[in-house]
């Protein structure tokens, strides 16, 4: 059993007066690809921000790569959910270049090593051609692929992706998910990737982390995605059907 990349012990996260998650205990082994699912406002983004050290932990303890959250940000690749809209006149190269040691003071030169690292990451998700274009001329999905590439720069040990597949077309969605899965396996990366449609990550992810109503459940797809399991999480009847093709259908008529 590999050493866990992420552990939570009885963790509670709150925003203002509202408790988002409480009593969360889980452990993600190194090299595991975790799909993070749950309803809107269920706490997916809050949990990811807590792992980054951006969201204070109200109670309990989190460790990330064996350290406190935020202690080893250099080894974490992160793709936030809000994509930002500034810099329409700049290119993808400028965008990705701005993040290279962007936390250091000084003039934003891009070194040769930076350029090589960026190109390698762009190639990995087939986004090289996009990087020469102006950001203002890219569609939402195209911009997103650049940001996925950015999260991969330097091959971090832990990848936290917040809805990386949203607003990609179905073919591209599957392609990006499979590429991510392959890269993660090759490099031994641990990935926590939130998504809306569980089917987009079927076959790619090793585990499912489902957060709803302040609770979280981590397990294999078969363990978590059951009618009983999800109904308990939602606190309302939810039906999980498996189509012959292997697709999962989560229906919540009664909600």
């Amino acid at each position, binding site marked *: 059993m590999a050493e866990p990349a992420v552990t939570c012990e009885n963790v509670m996260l709150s925003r203002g007066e509202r408790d988002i998650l409480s009593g969360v205990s889980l452990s993600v082994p190194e090299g595991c690809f975790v799909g993070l699912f749950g309803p809107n406002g269920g706490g997916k983004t809050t949990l990811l921000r807590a792992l980054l050290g951006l969201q204070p932990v109200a109670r309990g303890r989190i460790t990330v790569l064996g350290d406190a959250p935020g202690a080893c940000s250099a080894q974490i690749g992160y793709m*936030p959910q*809000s994509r*930002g809209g500034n810099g329409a006149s700049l290119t993808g190269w*400028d965008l990705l270049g*701005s993040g290279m*040691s*962007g936390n250091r003071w000084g*003039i934003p*030169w891009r070194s040769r090593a930076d350029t090589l690292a960026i190109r390698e990451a762009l190639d990995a998700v087939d986004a090289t051609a996009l990087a020469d274009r102006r950001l203002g001329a890219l569609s939402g999905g195209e911009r997103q692929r650049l940001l996925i590439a950015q999260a991969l720069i330097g091959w971090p040990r832990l990848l936290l992706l917040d809805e990386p597949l949203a607003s990609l077309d179905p073919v591209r969605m599957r392609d990006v998910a499979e590429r991510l899965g392959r890269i993660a396996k090759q490099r031994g990366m641990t990935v926590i990737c939130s998504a809306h449609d569980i089917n987009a990550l079927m076959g790619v992810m090793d585990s499912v982390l489902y957060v709803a109503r302040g609770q979280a459940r981590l397990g294999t797809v078969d363990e978590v995605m059951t009618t009983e399991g999800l109904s308990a999480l939602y606190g309302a009847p939810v039906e999980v059907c498996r189509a012959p093709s292997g697709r999962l259908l989560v229906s919540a008529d009664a909600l």
Partner: protein
Amino acid sequence: MFAYDFMRMAFGASVFVALLAGPVGWFLVLRGQSFAGHALSHIAFAGAAGAALVGWSPLTGLFAAAILAGGAMGVLDRQTAQRDVAIGLVLSLAMGCGVLFLHLMTRSASIANALLFGNVLGVSRAMLASLAGFTLIGGGALALLARPLLFASLQPELAEARGVNIRLLSTLFLMLVGAATAESSQITGVLLVFTLMVGPGASAHRLGLSPLAGIGAAALLAVAEAWGGLALSWWTDAPVSFWIAVLSVGVFLLAGVFNRTA
């Protein structure tokens, strides 16, 4: 026209002002904070008028008010929708106070005119030195801030996750905007600060240059527009600020044509 000392001073002063205003303006446009820059110039006006009223140098009031207000704006940063309303209200209040201060002064007309529309032809040697000093300090500060500021402007959440202090950065930048605004208003007046700050920066963005080239282009365009304004004013006898405004808009439109053919 270089036979006259006041013209040589004016050309010198506009270089210093433009070299800071252009690059700062490039970041203002990138961050979508042009309106904040505009507001700072009005607050600076109130500061200058207030300083003149109590017998201090208007220049001191101008710089102090603009830099302090920039800092305050950064510390109290809110979401965009609220921010525009807040800035608008503070801007109006500042302008109102400025009018009151001028009203209370006996020889207000000439001061008001210089503050509102600039007085580049009346730059003294001491003022030139202080402008040079501010540009040196401001330029140095911007060179230090540039890398994290670019990152935070393009990807605030990612920058935050990598340990960039967004609020501190935004506050320092707005203080820098305050200094650049106060400098620019020496040449164009507070009402036309946009022409030297936002105009060249926006034109550089339109040209579609990468960040460092864009920042350089903004500085060069600002110098060219300021000098062009001085020369045209010499030949035509129209005010300098008028010509700088015309050049600023003209260059912006031209940049759009270049961008389309590129």
